[in-house]
Protein backbone atom coordinates (compact mmCIF):
# COMPACT_ATOMS: atom_id res chain seq x y z
CA UNK A 1 0.00 0.00 0.00
CA UNK A 2 2.59 2.54 1.08
CA UNK A 3 5.00 1.41 -1.61
CA UNK A 4 2.48 2.37 -4.25
CA UNK A 5 2.40 5.93 -2.89
CA UNK A 6 6.12 6.24 -3.57
CA UNK A 7 5.54 4.91 -7.06
CA UNK A 8 2.96 7.63 -7.57
CA UNK A 9 5.51 10.39 -7.11
CA UNK A 10 6.12 12.35 -10.26
CA UNK A 11 9.12 14.51 -10.90
CA UNK A 12 9.35 18.15 -11.79
CA UNK A 13 10.28 18.66 -15.41
CA UNK A 14 13.12 21.14 -15.31
CA UNK A 15 15.33 21.88 -18.30
CA UNK A 16 18.83 20.42 -18.22
CA UNK A 17 21.55 22.85 -17.12
CA UNK A 18 23.58 24.12 -20.05
CA UNK A 19 27.22 24.62 -20.81
CA UNK A 20 27.67 26.92 -23.79
CA UNK A 21 30.82 26.90 -25.88
CA UNK A 22 31.70 29.20 -28.74
CA UNK A 23 34.23 27.72 -31.13
CA UNK A 24 36.13 30.62 -32.66
CA UNK A 25 37.67 29.09 -35.74
CA UNK A 26 40.26 30.68 -37.96
CA UNK A 27 39.21 30.07 -41.58
CA UNK A 28 41.61 32.57 -43.11
CA UNK A 29 43.53 31.78 -46.29
CA UNK A 30 46.55 30.38 -44.47
CA UNK A 31 44.40 27.54 -43.12
CA UNK A 32 43.74 26.39 -46.68
CA UNK A 33 44.53 22.78 -47.56
CA UNK A 34 45.54 20.26 -44.92
CA UNK A 35 44.88 22.47 -41.86
CA UNK A 36 41.25 23.18 -42.73
CA UNK A 37 40.70 19.55 -43.72
CA UNK A 38 42.04 18.38 -40.37
CA UNK A 39 39.96 21.02 -38.57
CA UNK A 40 36.85 19.68 -40.33
CA UNK A 41 37.74 16.13 -39.31
CA UNK A 42 38.22 17.36 -35.75
CA UNK A 43 34.73 18.88 -35.76
CA UNK A 44 33.31 15.54 -36.88
CA UNK A 45 35.03 13.80 -33.98
CA UNK A 46 33.82 16.49 -31.59
CA UNK A 47 30.27 15.94 -32.76
CA UNK A 48 30.45 12.15 -32.43
CA UNK A 49 32.06 12.25 -28.99
CA UNK A 50 29.51 14.69 -27.57
CA UNK A 51 26.59 12.74 -28.99
CA UNK A 52 27.97 9.55 -27.45
CA UNK A 53 27.59 11.07 -23.97
CA UNK A 54 23.87 11.30 -23.27
CA UNK A 55 23.97 13.98 -20.59
CA UNK A 56 26.59 16.04 -22.40
CA UNK A 57 24.55 15.88 -25.59
CA UNK A 58 21.65 17.52 -23.76
CA UNK A 59 23.74 20.02 -21.81
CA UNK A 60 26.55 21.24 -24.03
CA UNK A 61 25.47 23.99 -26.41
CA UNK A 62 27.71 24.71 -29.38
CA UNK A 63 28.10 27.81 -31.48
CA UNK A 64 30.66 28.36 -34.22
CA UNK A 65 32.04 31.71 -35.28
CA UNK A 66 34.39 31.49 -38.24
CA UNK A 67 36.80 34.29 -39.08
CA UNK A 68 38.30 34.19 -42.54
CA UNK A 69 37.90 37.36 -44.55
CA UNK A 70 34.86 38.31 -42.53
CA UNK A 71 33.46 37.18 -39.18
CA UNK A 72 30.48 34.89 -39.54
CA UNK A 73 28.23 32.97 -37.18
CA UNK A 74 27.61 29.62 -38.80
CA UNK A 75 24.48 27.55 -38.92
CA UNK A 76 25.24 24.60 -36.64
CA UNK A 77 21.74 23.13 -36.71
CA UNK A 78 22.08 21.71 -40.22
CA UNK A 79 19.26 23.73 -41.70
CA UNK A 80 17.58 22.00 -44.67
CA UNK A 81 18.79 24.51 -47.25
CA UNK A 82 22.38 25.37 -48.05
CA UNK A 83 25.47 23.28 -47.52
CA UNK A 84 25.89 23.87 -43.79
CA UNK A 85 28.47 26.65 -44.07
CA UNK A 86 25.61 29.06 -44.32
CA UNK A 87 25.99 32.27 -42.43
CA UNK A 88 23.39 33.15 -39.84
CA UNK A 89 22.72 36.25 -37.77
CA UNK A 90 24.69 36.93 -34.59
CA UNK A 91 21.69 35.97 -32.51
CA UNK A 92 21.95 34.14 -29.21
CA UNK A 93 18.64 32.44 -30.01
CA UNK A 94 19.85 30.93 -33.26
CA UNK A 95 23.60 30.59 -32.93
CA UNK A 96 23.57 27.78 -30.33
CA UNK A 97 22.32 24.21 -30.48
CA UNK A 98 22.61 21.46 -27.90
CA UNK A 99 25.06 18.80 -29.00
CA UNK A 100 22.32 16.30 -29.80
CA UNK A 101 21.20 18.62 -32.61
CA UNK A 102 24.66 19.76 -33.68
CA UNK A 103 25.62 19.47 -37.33
CA UNK A 104 29.23 20.46 -37.85
CA UNK A 105 29.51 22.71 -40.90
CA UNK A 106 32.14 22.04 -43.54
CA UNK A 107 34.60 24.92 -43.34
CA UNK A 108 36.46 26.54 -46.22
CA UNK A 109 39.47 28.79 -45.80
CA UNK A 110 40.07 32.18 -47.40
CA UNK A 111 40.75 35.81 -46.58
CA UNK A 112 42.28 37.72 -43.71
CA UNK A 113 42.16 37.04 -39.95
CA UNK A 114 39.71 39.40 -38.18
CA UNK A 115 40.28 37.73 -34.81
CA UNK A 116 39.50 40.77 -32.70
CA UNK A 117 35.98 41.17 -34.01
CA UNK A 118 35.41 37.43 -33.69
CA UNK A 119 36.36 37.49 -30.00
CA UNK A 120 34.11 40.47 -29.33
CA UNK A 121 31.20 38.74 -31.08
CA UNK A 122 31.72 35.59 -29.02
CA UNK A 123 31.66 37.51 -25.75
CA UNK A 124 28.48 39.34 -26.78
CA UNK A 125 26.79 36.12 -27.89
CA UNK A 126 27.57 34.43 -24.59
CA UNK A 127 26.30 37.36 -22.55
CA UNK A 128 23.04 37.27 -24.52
CA UNK A 129 22.84 33.51 -24.17
CA UNK A 130 23.11 33.77 -20.38
CA UNK A 131 20.29 36.32 -20.38
CA UNK A 132 18.14 33.81 -22.23
CA UNK A 133 18.98 31.13 -19.67
CA UNK A 134 18.07 33.46 -16.82
CA UNK A 135 14.79 34.47 -18.42
CA UNK A 136 13.80 30.85 -18.88
CA UNK A 137 14.93 29.48 -15.53
CA UNK A 138 17.69 27.36 -17.07
CA UNK A 139 20.70 26.58 -14.88
CA UNK A 140 24.04 26.98 -16.58
CA UNK A 141 27.74 26.45 -16.20
CA UNK A 142 30.45 28.96 -16.93
CA UNK A 143 30.63 29.16 -20.72
CA UNK A 144 33.73 28.59 -22.80
CA UNK A 145 35.33 30.42 -25.68
CA UNK A 146 37.68 28.16 -27.58
CA UNK A 147 39.81 30.04 -30.11
CA UNK A 148 41.82 28.20 -32.75
CA UNK A 149 44.07 30.16 -35.10
CA UNK A 150 47.21 29.82 -37.17
CA UNK A 151 47.83 33.52 -37.53
CA UNK A 152 47.80 37.00 -36.13
CA UNK A 153 44.80 39.27 -35.88
CA UNK A 154 44.61 41.46 -38.97
CA UNK A 155 41.77 43.71 -37.85
CA UNK A 156 42.41 47.04 -36.18
CA UNK A 157 41.23 47.24 -32.61
CA UNK A 158 41.94 43.60 -31.77
CA UNK A 159 43.81 44.82 -28.68
CA UNK A 160 40.52 46.12 -27.23
CA UNK A 161 38.95 42.73 -27.86
CA UNK A 162 41.83 41.04 -26.09
CA UNK A 163 41.33 43.36 -23.14
CA UNK A 164 37.58 42.65 -23.19
CA UNK A 165 38.25 38.90 -23.12
CA UNK A 166 40.59 39.31 -20.16
CA UNK A 167 38.03 41.37 -18.25
CA UNK A 168 35.24 38.93 -19.02
CA UNK A 169 37.37 36.09 -17.73
CA UNK A 170 38.44 38.11 -14.70
CA UNK A 171 34.85 38.60 -13.64
CA UNK A 172 34.24 34.88 -14.14
CA UNK A 173 31.96 35.45 -17.13
CA UNK A 174 33.77 33.00 -19.38
CA UNK A 175 36.66 30.57 -19.65
CA UNK A 176 38.93 31.55 -22.52
CA UNK A 177 41.23 29.06 -24.21
CA UNK A 178 43.39 29.83 -27.21
CA UNK A 179 45.13 27.28 -29.38
CA UNK A 180 47.84 28.26 -31.83
CA UNK A 181 48.39 26.20 -34.96
CA UNK A 182 51.71 26.02 -36.81
CA UNK A 183 53.03 29.57 -37.15
CA UNK A 184 50.55 31.28 -34.84
CA UNK A 185 52.07 34.05 -32.73
CA UNK A 186 51.77 32.67 -29.21
CA UNK A 187 52.73 36.00 -27.64
CA UNK A 188 49.78 37.69 -29.28
CA UNK A 189 47.43 34.90 -28.25
CA UNK A 190 48.64 35.23 -24.66
CA UNK A 191 47.16 38.73 -24.59
CA UNK A 192 43.59 37.35 -24.62
CA UNK A 193 43.73 35.62 -21.25
CA UNK A 194 45.50 36.11 -17.95
CA UNK A 195 44.28 32.77 -16.69
CA UNK A 196 45.06 30.29 -19.43
CA UNK A 197 48.26 30.47 -21.39
CA UNK A 198 47.74 29.69 -25.07
CA UNK A 199 48.43 26.13 -26.14
CA UNK A 200 50.44 25.19 -29.20
CA UNK A 201 48.85 22.43 -31.23
CA UNK A 202 51.20 19.54 -31.97
CA UNK A 203 51.33 19.46 -35.74
CA UNK A 204 47.76 19.27 -37.00
CA UNK A 205 46.39 17.15 -34.16
CA UNK A 206 42.94 18.69 -34.47
CA UNK A 207 41.18 15.40 -33.94
CA UNK A 208 42.94 14.79 -30.65
CA UNK A 209 42.25 18.39 -29.66
CA UNK A 210 38.53 18.09 -30.32
CA UNK A 211 38.23 14.77 -28.52
CA UNK A 212 39.86 16.46 -25.53
CA UNK A 213 37.46 19.39 -25.81
CA UNK A 214 34.46 17.07 -25.91
CA UNK A 215 35.70 15.19 -22.85
CA UNK A 216 36.34 18.42 -20.98
CA UNK A 217 32.92 19.86 -21.76
CA UNK A 218 31.28 16.57 -20.76
CA UNK A 219 33.05 16.75 -17.41
CA UNK A 220 32.03 20.36 -16.85
CA UNK A 221 28.43 19.77 -17.88
CA UNK A 222 28.14 17.01 -15.28
CA UNK A 223 29.99 18.68 -12.44
CA UNK A 224 28.12 19.08 -9.18
CA UNK A 225 27.92 22.05 -6.86
CA UNK A 226 31.31 22.82 -5.40
CA UNK A 227 33.17 20.98 -8.10
CA UNK A 228 35.65 22.41 -10.51
CA UNK A 229 35.69 19.61 -13.01
CA UNK A 230 39.31 18.53 -13.49
CA UNK A 231 40.18 18.65 -17.18
CA UNK A 232 41.81 15.68 -18.87
CA UNK A 233 45.53 15.92 -19.70
CA UNK A 234 46.37 17.95 -22.75
CA UNK A 235 48.15 15.45 -24.96
CA UNK A 236 47.68 17.42 -28.15
CA UNK A 237 49.64 20.52 -27.12
CA UNK A 238 53.38 20.93 -27.21
CA UNK A 239 53.78 23.32 -24.28
CA UNK A 240 53.69 22.49 -20.61
CA UNK A 241 50.33 23.53 -19.21
CA UNK A 242 50.79 22.56 -15.61
CA UNK A 243 50.56 26.13 -14.46
Amino acid sequence: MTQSQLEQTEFADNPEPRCAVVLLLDTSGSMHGKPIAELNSGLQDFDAALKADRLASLRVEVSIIAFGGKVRALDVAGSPHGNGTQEIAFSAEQAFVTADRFHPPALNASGETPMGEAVRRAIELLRDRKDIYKRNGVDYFRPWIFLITDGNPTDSGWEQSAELAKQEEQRKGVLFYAVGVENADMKTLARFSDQHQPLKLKGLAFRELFRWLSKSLSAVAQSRPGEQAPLPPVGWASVDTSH
Partner: protein
Amino acid sequence: MIGTSHQEAATPCQDAHQYRLLESGEVILAVADGAGTAARSAEGAALAVKRAVDALEQACRENKPASDEAWSLCMRQCFGLARQAIADLAAQDGSPIRLFATTLTCAVLAETRIVLGQIGDGFAVAQDGHGTLLGLTTPQRGEYANEAAFITMPQALDCIDVTTQALNAKAVALATDGLLRLALKLPGYTPHPPFFIPLFAFAAGVTDAASAGQQLADFLASDRVCARTDDDKTLVLAASVGPSDTPPSLSIGQGGA
Protein backbone atom coordinates in the same frame (compact mmCIF):
# COMPACT_ATOMS: atom_id res chain seq x y z
CA MET B 1 5.07 5.65 18.99
CA ILE B 2 8.29 6.86 17.54
CA GLY B 3 9.85 4.89 14.80
CA THR B 4 12.96 5.47 12.84
CA SER B 5 14.94 3.59 10.37
CA HIS B 6 18.01 4.31 8.54
CA GLN B 7 19.46 3.05 5.33
CA GLU B 8 23.01 3.56 4.28
CA ALA B 9 23.96 3.13 0.70
CA ALA B 10 26.87 0.84 -0.02
CA THR B 11 28.42 3.30 -2.44
CA PRO B 12 30.55 6.16 -1.18
CA CYS B 13 28.27 9.00 -0.26
CA GLN B 14 29.11 12.42 1.08
CA ASP B 15 25.62 13.09 2.39
CA ALA B 16 24.72 12.89 6.07
CA HIS B 17 21.66 13.38 8.22
CA GLN B 18 20.58 13.41 11.88
CA TYR B 19 17.27 13.77 13.65
CA ARG B 20 15.93 13.89 17.20
CA LEU B 21 12.45 13.60 18.61
CA LEU B 22 12.38 15.13 22.06
CA GLU B 23 9.97 14.06 24.81
CA SER B 24 9.00 17.72 25.07
CA GLY B 25 7.67 17.49 21.54
CA GLU B 26 10.27 19.23 19.42
CA VAL B 27 11.50 17.57 16.26
CA ILE B 28 15.01 18.38 15.06
CA LEU B 29 16.15 17.44 11.57
CA ALA B 30 19.37 18.06 9.67
CA VAL B 31 20.83 17.07 6.31
CA ALA B 32 24.23 17.91 4.84
CA ASP B 33 25.89 17.36 1.50
CA GLY B 34 29.67 17.14 1.45
CA ALA B 35 31.34 18.72 -1.57
CA GLY B 36 32.18 16.11 -4.18
CA THR B 37 35.75 17.26 -4.68
CA ALA B 38 36.67 17.95 -1.05
CA ALA B 39 38.67 14.97 0.20
CA ARG B 40 37.11 14.74 3.66
CA SER B 41 33.69 16.22 2.98
CA ALA B 42 31.86 13.10 4.19
CA GLU B 43 33.40 13.68 7.62
CA GLY B 44 32.51 17.36 7.39
CA ALA B 45 28.89 16.54 6.57
CA ALA B 46 28.60 13.95 9.35
CA LEU B 47 30.15 16.28 11.91
CA ALA B 48 28.03 19.25 10.82
CA VAL B 49 24.70 17.45 11.26
CA LYS B 50 25.79 15.84 14.53
CA ARG B 51 27.05 19.01 16.17
CA ALA B 52 24.14 21.13 14.95
CA VAL B 53 21.52 18.65 16.13
CA ASP B 54 23.26 18.18 19.49
CA ALA B 55 23.35 21.94 20.00
CA LEU B 56 19.71 22.37 19.01
CA GLU B 57 18.67 19.58 21.36
CA GLN B 58 20.63 21.12 24.20
CA ALA B 59 19.01 24.50 23.55
CA CYS B 60 15.54 22.91 23.60
CA ARG B 61 16.27 21.16 26.90
CA GLU B 62 18.10 23.84 28.77
CA ASN B 63 17.09 27.20 27.46
CA LYS B 64 14.31 26.88 24.95
CA PRO B 65 13.90 30.02 22.85
CA ALA B 66 10.53 31.67 23.31
CA SER B 67 10.34 34.06 20.38
CA ASP B 68 11.14 34.10 16.67
CA GLU B 69 14.12 36.33 17.36
CA ALA B 70 15.45 34.01 20.05
CA TRP B 71 15.00 31.01 17.77
CA SER B 72 16.82 32.74 14.92
CA LEU B 73 19.71 33.58 17.18
CA CYS B 74 19.76 30.04 18.54
CA MET B 75 19.85 28.56 15.04
CA ARG B 76 22.73 30.85 14.04
CA GLN B 77 24.65 29.88 17.15
CA CYS B 78 24.15 26.20 16.38
CA PHE B 79 25.55 26.74 12.87
CA GLY B 80 28.48 28.52 14.49
CA LEU B 81 29.08 25.53 16.75
CA ALA B 82 28.85 23.14 13.80
CA ARG B 83 31.42 25.19 11.89
CA GLN B 84 33.65 25.38 14.96
CA ALA B 85 33.53 21.60 15.37
CA ILE B 86 34.74 21.18 11.78
CA ALA B 87 37.40 23.86 12.26
CA ASP B 88 38.62 22.09 15.41
CA LEU B 89 38.84 18.75 13.64
CA ALA B 90 40.70 20.33 10.73
CA ALA B 91 43.12 22.11 13.08
CA GLN B 92 43.71 18.94 15.06
CA ASP B 93 44.70 17.13 11.88
CA GLY B 94 46.60 20.08 10.49
CA SER B 95 44.31 20.05 7.45
CA PRO B 96 42.74 23.02 5.71
CA ILE B 97 39.06 23.35 6.65
CA ARG B 98 38.06 23.45 2.98
CA LEU B 99 38.79 19.71 2.74
CA PHE B 100 35.68 19.24 4.90
CA ALA B 101 33.39 21.42 2.75
CA THR B 102 29.71 20.67 3.29
CA THR B 103 26.30 22.26 3.09
CA LEU B 104 23.98 22.17 6.11
CA THR B 105 20.20 22.44 6.40
CA CYS B 106 18.53 22.21 9.84
CA ALA B 107 14.90 22.43 10.93
CA VAL B 108 13.27 22.55 14.33
CA LEU B 109 9.56 21.94 14.66
CA ALA B 110 8.61 23.49 17.98
CA GLU B 111 4.93 23.67 18.83
CA THR B 112 3.38 25.85 16.14
CA ARG B 113 6.66 27.22 14.90
CA ILE B 114 9.11 25.93 12.37
CA VAL B 115 12.65 27.27 12.40
CA LEU B 116 14.97 26.67 9.50
CA GLY B 117 18.66 27.32 9.03
CA GLN B 118 20.58 26.76 5.85
CA ILE B 119 23.86 27.22 4.09
CA GLY B 120 24.19 25.77 0.62
CA ASP B 121 21.78 24.21 -1.81
CA GLY B 122 19.69 21.87 0.32
CA PHE B 123 15.96 22.48 0.61
CA ALA B 124 13.04 21.98 2.95
CA VAL B 125 9.32 21.74 2.26
CA ALA B 126 6.42 21.57 4.74
CA GLN B 127 2.78 20.64 4.43
CA ASP B 128 0.25 22.38 6.61
CA GLY B 129 -3.00 20.99 8.04
CA HIS B 130 -4.88 21.92 4.87
CA GLY B 131 -2.46 19.97 2.70
CA THR B 132 -0.84 23.09 1.28
CA LEU B 133 2.85 22.81 0.41
CA LEU B 134 5.25 25.47 1.54
CA GLY B 135 8.90 25.89 0.58
CA LEU B 136 10.75 26.71 3.80
CA THR B 137 14.01 27.79 2.25
CA THR B 138 15.42 28.59 -1.15
CA PRO B 139 18.55 26.68 -2.15
CA GLN B 140 21.54 29.01 -2.08
CA ARG B 141 23.21 28.80 -5.46
CA GLY B 142 25.72 30.88 -7.35
CA GLU B 143 25.44 32.10 -10.92
CA TYR B 144 26.71 28.79 -12.24
CA ALA B 145 25.19 25.36 -11.73
CA ASN B 146 28.35 23.97 -10.14
CA GLU B 147 28.76 26.71 -7.55
CA ALA B 148 27.61 26.25 -3.97
CA ALA B 149 28.03 27.78 -0.53
CA PHE B 150 29.59 25.69 2.22
CA ILE B 151 29.78 26.04 5.99
CA THR B 152 33.56 25.81 5.69
CA MET B 153 33.86 29.08 3.72
CA PRO B 154 35.55 31.93 5.59
CA GLN B 155 32.43 34.13 5.46
CA ALA B 156 30.02 31.22 5.96
CA LEU B 157 28.34 32.51 9.10
CA ASP B 158 27.27 35.65 7.27
CA CYS B 159 25.63 33.55 4.57
CA ILE B 160 23.28 31.46 6.71
CA ASP B 161 19.63 31.86 5.82
CA VAL B 162 17.43 31.57 8.90
CA THR B 163 13.65 31.72 8.78
CA THR B 164 10.99 31.19 11.39
CA GLN B 165 7.39 30.62 10.48
CA ALA B 166 4.19 30.16 12.44
CA LEU B 167 3.14 26.85 11.03
CA ASN B 168 1.57 23.77 12.48
CA ALA B 169 3.27 21.49 10.03
CA LYS B 170 1.68 18.14 9.35
CA ALA B 171 4.73 16.94 7.47
CA VAL B 172 8.20 18.19 6.65
CA ALA B 173 10.83 17.06 4.17
CA LEU B 174 14.50 18.01 4.19
CA ALA B 175 16.67 17.04 1.26
CA THR B 176 20.06 17.55 -0.30
CA ASP B 177 20.49 18.97 -3.78
CA GLY B 178 20.53 15.58 -5.50
CA LEU B 179 16.74 15.72 -5.48
CA LEU B 180 16.43 19.41 -6.25
CA ARG B 181 15.60 19.16 -9.94
CA LEU B 182 13.03 16.41 -9.30
CA ALA B 183 11.27 18.01 -6.37
CA LEU B 184 11.30 21.74 -7.08
CA LYS B 185 10.21 23.73 -10.09
CA LEU B 186 12.85 26.16 -11.33
CA PRO B 187 13.42 29.08 -11.46
CA GLY B 188 11.31 29.87 -8.38
CA TYR B 189 12.18 26.65 -6.49
CA THR B 190 8.49 26.05 -5.80
CA PRO B 191 7.64 22.60 -4.40
CA HIS B 192 6.35 20.25 -7.10
CA PRO B 193 3.05 18.87 -5.69
CA PRO B 194 3.08 15.57 -7.65
CA PHE B 195 6.39 14.84 -5.96
CA PHE B 196 5.59 15.82 -2.39
CA ILE B 197 1.94 14.91 -1.95
CA PRO B 198 2.38 11.14 -2.44
CA LEU B 199 5.58 11.30 -0.40
CA PHE B 200 3.88 12.99 2.56
CA ALA B 201 0.91 10.62 2.25
CA PHE B 202 3.41 7.78 2.47
CA ALA B 203 5.04 9.31 5.55
CA ALA B 204 1.69 9.89 7.29
CA GLY B 205 0.68 6.28 6.76
CA VAL B 206 3.86 4.77 8.19
CA THR B 207 3.14 2.01 10.69
CA ASP B 208 6.34 0.02 10.45
CA ALA B 209 9.16 2.52 10.47
CA ALA B 210 11.91 0.06 9.60
CA SER B 211 10.08 -1.07 6.52
CA ALA B 212 9.20 2.52 5.57
CA GLY B 213 12.86 3.54 5.74
CA GLN B 214 13.76 0.63 3.49
CA GLN B 215 11.04 1.57 1.02
CA LEU B 216 12.22 5.15 0.93
CA ALA B 217 15.81 4.07 0.38
CA ASP B 218 14.67 1.75 -2.40
CA PHE B 219 12.76 4.62 -3.92
CA LEU B 220 15.84 6.86 -3.88
CA ALA B 221 17.90 4.08 -5.42
CA SER B 222 15.26 3.21 -8.02
CA ASP B 223 16.03 3.46 -11.72
CA ARG B 224 13.27 6.01 -12.05
CA VAL B 225 15.00 8.40 -9.66
CA CYS B 226 18.55 7.60 -10.74
CA ALA B 227 17.70 8.25 -14.37
CA ARG B 228 17.09 11.85 -13.36
CA THR B 229 19.91 12.54 -10.92
CA ASP B 230 23.34 10.99 -10.54
CA ASP B 231 24.13 12.87 -7.34
CA ASP B 232 24.03 11.66 -3.76
CA LYS B 233 20.56 12.22 -2.41
CA THR B 234 19.18 12.27 1.08
CA LEU B 235 15.59 12.74 2.10
CA VAL B 236 14.36 13.05 5.68
CA LEU B 237 10.60 12.95 6.13
CA ALA B 238 8.75 13.73 9.34
CA ALA B 239 4.99 13.43 9.51
CA SER B 240 2.35 13.46 12.23
CA VAL B 241 0.54 10.18 12.52
CA GLY B 242 -2.70 9.90 14.44
CA PRO B 243 -4.03 12.67 16.73
CA SER B 244 -2.22 15.98 16.68
CA ASP B 245 -0.72 15.48 20.15
CA THR B 246 1.15 12.43 18.95
CA PRO B 247 4.78 12.99 18.04
CA PRO B 248 5.53 12.58 14.35
CA SER B 249 7.00 9.49 12.86
CA LEU B 250 10.20 9.81 10.94
CA SER B 251 11.35 8.14 7.82
CA ILE B 252 14.87 8.47 6.62
CA GLY B 253 16.07 7.55 3.22
CA GLN B 254 19.52 8.00 1.89
CA GLY B 255 20.94 6.97 -1.39
CA GLY B 256 24.31 7.37 -3.01
CA ALA B 257 25.06 7.70 -6.68
